[in-house]
């Protein structure tokens, strides 16, 4: 009897307590974002995570921002102008802007930031300032950035402006260790708190220069796994999810008050061939023959890949640039693509003298060595493993044998970048910027030892790259960018398998006004969705 009373009292206490939490729940003016991976650091110059960038783009302003259709819009600079020779960009800054700590923002902060990144060769932002020669500040609201070559990409779109009064006097080593626990920017939100492993909160900056956003705070909530994250969206614990895996996305479509959306992305998954011509390369030299690579490209059915490996959540791949780049992407007509045509593959291989002389089902080169290659893929990326299996089957049908081995991402990275002891891999790329420059730059000769994962080196391609990077006129630049895509497509150094869609989901009963920007509503190069959504009227 006594035990039962205690149990009953406990239950009552518990119910009271949970009742209290309901009332303690934050009001509808908080925008709650769910993700399954957290930022690494709040230091914008040393972060490598998309999550950190997502938070920091709300805390720091750039000179120029992307709007929700990824067109440039004014940021800290109300306007910018190229000089007639394209060698310098003049930014007119806003007056009266204050840092979150109350200090005034001036052109000196911009100069400091650009100089710091350029002189110390810090961070990925450095790539936009390699040709920078100097920064002039004629007055407190004007900045002139000078370059040795014309710049097709406006670096103001990428680089967050840092407060000189906080960052000055730090050496490169200091900055490397600087956690920046309380980031101070000029942006629409000020940093509140990061409970590591749990959540990160920022609150509205009421003295921000732009139109006031409706969300008084934005809370990023970390989930231990994506299943629970999806359940949390259903339960109304969060308002929007940054990224949802395909199987879970399928489960979310059709749920009450939840919209699951599928948006073209800035990413692709690809098959890469070891094209190292180093005499010490341990790769199978037969893969250096373009005919063999093209035959493999013809053998593979990209539509089937998208359907079977990706459950339809993407578009069949062709060129280097994914569809989110819009008109920058070269559209190759379907009948001119190397795709789903095993007959063509067989003909090409026959004509090049690769025939199955010993009747084992695998073609041999004229010197007798078989068309047999090692294929590696990341075991935890199930779509890649599935794609690798389909690729292996497709290759077998045209007499090419692939031996598939899976490994973890780190090991694959080390194999591909630190050795030449491999033939073919399956992996992927995301563009770090909304400009074609980054993805086109992956396979440059100069990126061997850097990003170039196939040791591809084509001087002509490199020349075109330099040319597009210095062509300020958009139409002229686009021509070159298209040429480069065709050039690399013909080389068949990559088989771009697919452009996967960005799968996201949000609650329709809390916030409204989400724009499906190419690349994603959130986790994109624009922050405008955070600023423009409004609460659903009760």
């Amino acid at each position, binding site marked *: 009897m006594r035990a039962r009373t205690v149990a009953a009292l406990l239950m009552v206490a518990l119910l009271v307590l949970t009742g209290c*939490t309901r009332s303690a*729940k934050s009001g509808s003016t908080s925008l709650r974002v769910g993700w399954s991976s957290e930022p690494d650091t709040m230091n914008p110059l040393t972060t490598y995570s998309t999550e950190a960038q997502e938070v920091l783009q709300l805390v720091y302003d750039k000179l120029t921002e992307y709007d929700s259709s990824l067109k440039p819009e004014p940021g800290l600079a109300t306007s910018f102008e190229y000089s007639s020779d394209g060698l310098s960009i003049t930014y007119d800054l806003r007056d009266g802007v204050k840092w979150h700590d109350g200090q005034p923002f001036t052109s000196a902060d911009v100069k400091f930031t650009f100089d710091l990144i350029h002189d110390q060769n810090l961070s990925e932002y450095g790539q936009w300032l390699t040709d920078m020669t100097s920064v002039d500040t004629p007055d407190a609201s004007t900045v002139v950035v000078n370059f040795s070559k014309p710049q097709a990409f406006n670096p103001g779109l990428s680089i967050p402006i840092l407060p000189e009064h906080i960052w000055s006097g730090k050496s490169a080593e200091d900055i490397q260790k600087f*956690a920046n626990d309380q980031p101070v920017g000029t942006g629409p939100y000020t940093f509140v708190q990061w409970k590591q492993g749990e959540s990160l909160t920022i609150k509205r900056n009421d003295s921000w220069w732009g139109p006031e956003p409706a969300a008084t705070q934005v809370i990023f909530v970390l989930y231990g796994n994506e*299943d*629970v994250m999806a359940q949390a969206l259903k*339960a109304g614990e969060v308002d929007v999810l940054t990224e949802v895996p395909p199987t879970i996305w399928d489960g979310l479509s059709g749920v009450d008050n939840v919209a699951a959306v599928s948006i073209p992305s800035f990413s692709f998954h690809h098959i890469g061939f070891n094209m190292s011509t180093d005499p010490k390369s341990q790769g199978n030299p037969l893969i250096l023959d373009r005919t063999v690579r093209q035959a493999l490209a013809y053998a593979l059915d990209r539509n089937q890949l998208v359907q079977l490996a990706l459950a339809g959540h993407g578009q069949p791949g062709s060129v280097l640039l994914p569809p989110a780049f819009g008109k920058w992407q070269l559209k190759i007509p379907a009948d001119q693509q190397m795709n789903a045509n095993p007959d063509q593959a067989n003909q090409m291989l026959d004509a090049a003298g690769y025939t199955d002389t010993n009747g084992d089902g695998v073609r041999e080169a004229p010197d007798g060595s078989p068309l047999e290659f090692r294929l590696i893929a990341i075991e935890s990326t199930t779509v890649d493993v599935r794609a690798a299996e389909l690729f292996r089957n497709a290759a077998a049908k045209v007499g090419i044998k692939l031996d598939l081995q899976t490994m973890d991402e780190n*090991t694959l990275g080390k194999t591909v970048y*630190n050795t030449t002891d491999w033939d073919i891999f399956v992996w992927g790329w995301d563009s770090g910027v909304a400009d074609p420059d980054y993805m086109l730059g992956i396979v440059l000769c100069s*990126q061997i030892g850097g990003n170039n994962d196939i040791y591809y080196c084509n001087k002509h391609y490199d020349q075109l790259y330099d040319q597009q990077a210095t062509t300020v006129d958009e139409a002229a630049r686009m021509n070159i960018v298209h040429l480069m895509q065709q050039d690399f497509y013909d080389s068949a150094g990559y088989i771009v398998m697919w452009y996967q869609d960005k799968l996201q989901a949000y609650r329709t009963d809390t916030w409204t006004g989400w724009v499906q920007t190419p690349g994603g509503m959130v986790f994109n190069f624009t922050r405008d969705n955070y600023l423009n959504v409004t609460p659903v009227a009760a």
Partner: protein
Amino acid sequence: MFRAGYLARKAGQLALTLFAVVTFNFVLFRVLPGDPLQLIARSGHLPPEAVARLRALFGLDRPLLVQFWYYLRNLSHAQFGFSFTYRRPVSSILAERMTNTIILLGAATVFIVLLGVGLGVFAAARRGSRADSGTVVTALVFWSLPTFWTGMILVFLLGVWLHAFPISGITTPGAVYSSWFDQTGDVVSHIFLPTVTLALVDIGQFILITRSSLVDVLTEDFILTAKAKGLSRRNVVWRHGVRNALLPVITASALYISLVVGGAIQVETVFSWPGIGRLIYDAVLRRDYPILEACFLIFAVTVILANLASDLLYQVLDPRVREA
């Protein structure tokens, strides 16, 4: 109660084990394939100078033996180095995560051990009855429940469907509390589901161990003597029986406590509990050696200390061990 020689021998063993653990710990993570900076460097057009600076920051540019020396030197100052991922001192990251894990698993452990032992005694005292077989079967069923699955079922039933409990985290994100009472309430409601999950899947072993051990003891002659003396049933079972049946339970508890520090990776993952288990899991994926080394070291030290504690407790509880 303990002889000085015995204690000194134990302390010596302890020190030796610790050094072996520290060394093994260091070597283990460096023979793993994969380079912690590999993926960082691939993520963008990082200038070579920046990559070199990163290597230097973590001492990865130095020979292995020198790295080991730095590691030992740091340890002697209770410094666990710099996290590759978060680029801040490991000790500051660990402290918070450890607290969260201890809150969760501490609550669960006390609950599980007390209730498990209680139910084990209940069953053993009624050996052969329906209540006994019912308890055993239930314990077996719960013991075979997969943790992850049980957690997800609870999330779905009590969290999403009934809306009775929050399903993730340790507090409601962004909540502003009007009082200390509110805040505690929030934590309690968050801790409820993970604790219940842990209790469900882990209580079985304590029931079964207690029961089988007590069943053996209850057949001994001195129990018959006690009964013959006319002692009450309660007295026979608890004072004469349970006290002698506790030894295996203590071993099991010691092992369980070491698990407390290691974190319950699965439960922490399902309920997004920011504890040590999740930290270890993420650190493995990111090749964050300093975090892993620190976690494993603390883990090892706890196992060693828990074993020492159970050895010493044996001495208190069992005179036979004392003599030997």
